[in-house]
């Protein structure tokens, strides 16, 4: 590890992680409040290397956002539209089929599909989306539908949560993305996303997903009105669920982009907050395998640096990102496989191409 910590308080964290002692709430708060960014990074890097050595994972994936029509209208979202609003869209199943056929990438390993909470689409539409993707790309993992969407499906289908998930699974669902929990705080829920499911329901859906044998990710949207304490409590809630189910694969910190949202007065996140959040997630979430540096939100440059602040995964090629770019993201909309490999290798890490379930992909060149 590093030779000396500028902030001497960090030695207590070093002792804990070296002896595999779980970090407490007050440890997390101290990590957020210290100005010793390099020290926090070194602690996270120690854990990251213990788990994954020099490996950094990435996936050849494609994002599909089937609709931006959403009745939740969270204050932090620049993507959602009302049904009759300009720019509102909803892909038909045929359109999704066309997108897939047009982009028949040889290496594609994961489809990441999420969308708004549409007021009228029937449950069959979502099942048809899955079946269509499964039909065209039988070899690709489908990671789709956040807990918020799954809750909505259960309402419109009048099925229980387990039966809803079973139906999705049968139609082709392989994995569930981690969105929709934002920050698991009643205060923030009330202020920013009152129409979206409560954190207790989010946890219930995730537990049901895990119980059906599907894995999922978890996220946190930071950089808006949240406090340090609320972030740490979010981590602890995720850690508790994971203790129960062990169904989470990766945690993804999501840096808030405010452009075109109702919170546009809020400045972009700073690199310090981005890297601290990544590192503290690595340190607090001791039962999560992977911490992702989501380059769409961090920017390519900072995502590369995040590899030594606790992140072991750079997400993927994405092809065409829509949600964060509606909120003013300056990153590319997609990266090539070669660009991702270079980002990893030029920082001295070893790129490992994976599938959605973090299994290494056989090298075919």
């Amino acid at each position, binding site marked *: 590890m590093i*030779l000396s910590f*500028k902030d001497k308080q960090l030695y207590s964290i070093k002792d804990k992680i070296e002896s595999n002692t779980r970090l407490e709430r007050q440890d997390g708060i101290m990590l957020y409040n210290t*100005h010793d*960014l390099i020290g926090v990074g070194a602690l996270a890097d120690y854990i990251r290397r213990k788990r994954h050595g020099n490996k950094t994972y990435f996936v050849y994936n494609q994002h599909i956002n089937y609709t931006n029509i959403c009745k939740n209208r969270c204050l932090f979202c620049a993507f959602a539209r009302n049904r009759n609003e300009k720019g509102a869209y909803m892909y038909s199943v045929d359109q999704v089929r066309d997108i897939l056929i047009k982009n028949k990438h040889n290496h594609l390993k994961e489809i990441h599909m999420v969308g708004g909470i549409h007021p009228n689409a029937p449950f069959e539409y979502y099942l048809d989306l899955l079946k269509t993707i499964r039909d065209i790309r039988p070899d690709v993992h489908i990671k789709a539908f956040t807990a918020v969407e799954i809750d909505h499906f259960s309402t419109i289908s009048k099925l229980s949560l387990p039966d809803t998930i079973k139906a999705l699974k049968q139609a082709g669902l392989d994995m569930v993305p981690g969105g929709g929990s934002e920050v698991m705080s009643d205060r923030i829920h009330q202020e920013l996303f009152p129409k979206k499911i409560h954190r207790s329901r989010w946890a219930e859906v995730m537990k049901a997903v895990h119980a059906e044998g599907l894995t999922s990710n978890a996220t946190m949207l930071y950089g808006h009105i949240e406090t340090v304490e609320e972030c740490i409590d979010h981590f602890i809630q995720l850690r508790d669920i994971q203790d129960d189910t062990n169904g989470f694969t990766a945690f993804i910190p999501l840096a808030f982009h405010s452009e075109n949202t109702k919170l546009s007065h809020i400045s972009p996140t700073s690199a310090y907050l981005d890297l601290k959040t990544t590192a503290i997630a690595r340190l607090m979430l001791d039962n999560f395998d992977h911490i992702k540096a989501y380059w769409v939100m961090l920017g390519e*440059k*900072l995502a*590369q*640096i995040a590899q030594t602040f606790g992140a072991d995964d750079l997400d993927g090629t994405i092809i065409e990102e829509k949600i964060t770019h509606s909120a003013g993201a300056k990153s590319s909309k997609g990266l090539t496989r070669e660009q991702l490999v270079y980002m990893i290798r*030029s920082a001295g890490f070893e790129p490992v191409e994976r599938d959605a379930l973090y299994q290494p992909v056989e090298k075919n060149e």
Partner: protein
Amino acid sequence: MNTVESIIDAVYQGQRISADAAEILYHNAPLLTLASLADHLRYKKHPNSMITFVVDRNINYTNICISKCKFCAFCRPVTHEEAYVISKDVLDQKIQETLEMGGTQILMQGGLHPDLPFSFYLDLLAHIKKNFSIHIHGFSPPEIEHMSKIAGITFQETIQQLKNAGLDSIPGGGAEILVDQVRSHISPNKCDRKTWLAIMKIAHEIGLPTSATMMFGHIETPSQLVTHLMRIRDLQDQTNGFTAFIPWSFQPDNTHIHVRKVTAWQYLRVLALSRIVLDNISNIQASWVTQGDKIAQLALSFGANDLGSTMIEENVVAATGVHFRLSKEDMIRLIHAAGLKAAQRNCTYDILHWFSK
């Protein structure tokens, strides 16, 4: 034995690093180890947590240049439709705007124009000083060499006359990599490294402070990069005239050198190494113009203690298609978000204003 650990221990204990040892760190030290050491040295030099910046504008008096460096996307031949020489009206307007925005200096640089007489430059300085109260940071060593050739006078005489006409300090541009083997490839018509160093030495002796730069990430080897740092350090030992060192990474788009752009990872390594090697230069600047605001903020933990300038106007890097912007307000916000204190300075690093959170 020279291991990363032993080298780092020695530097922590206050020993000066050798070129060989610096190269070992460049190749083998983990990024956060370099950062930690650079940050330690930065606090040793500047015990307070202050980060400074200057409010200024880059004014490029001409883009006509006979040097034709391969890394440049800004220069134009005399006959080119985009070729220009600034008029006094435009110049005055730019300076007026700078002052209105709280600016305290202009960075005035330009191409090596084949026909302008030496009196053009002296006149420009005198004109500015007559009409405005503003610090003129201008004319990098290649321009000074060019003027001395045109005027047929020594470097010493050239610099003295520029100083008498109103020049306040000299920017460290044109250094690129101070190894002739590199220079003869990327900028064959530009002054050689001896000339660059000689002009800086004379400027320091005459009493003009200067900065020093390094443009890396093109064809140089790690060993040549370290040699550059050593040559700057050696001259500083003699003159103590460098106020700051600014490493920035080559931006290859629209140029004649086709290499891959330096990553943030490599930029931060070189920045930290600069702080570690240059133990006799007080200020190390982060380059937000080439790295963007996020990496520039991060640079404040990798040895930098200064964010350079707000650059109300910047043309040279912009010509390579790189368009980062950073307002004074954003600069202050980033400094505060890093838990540091923000202050506006002048060209000689006197503090003009503190900004509270």
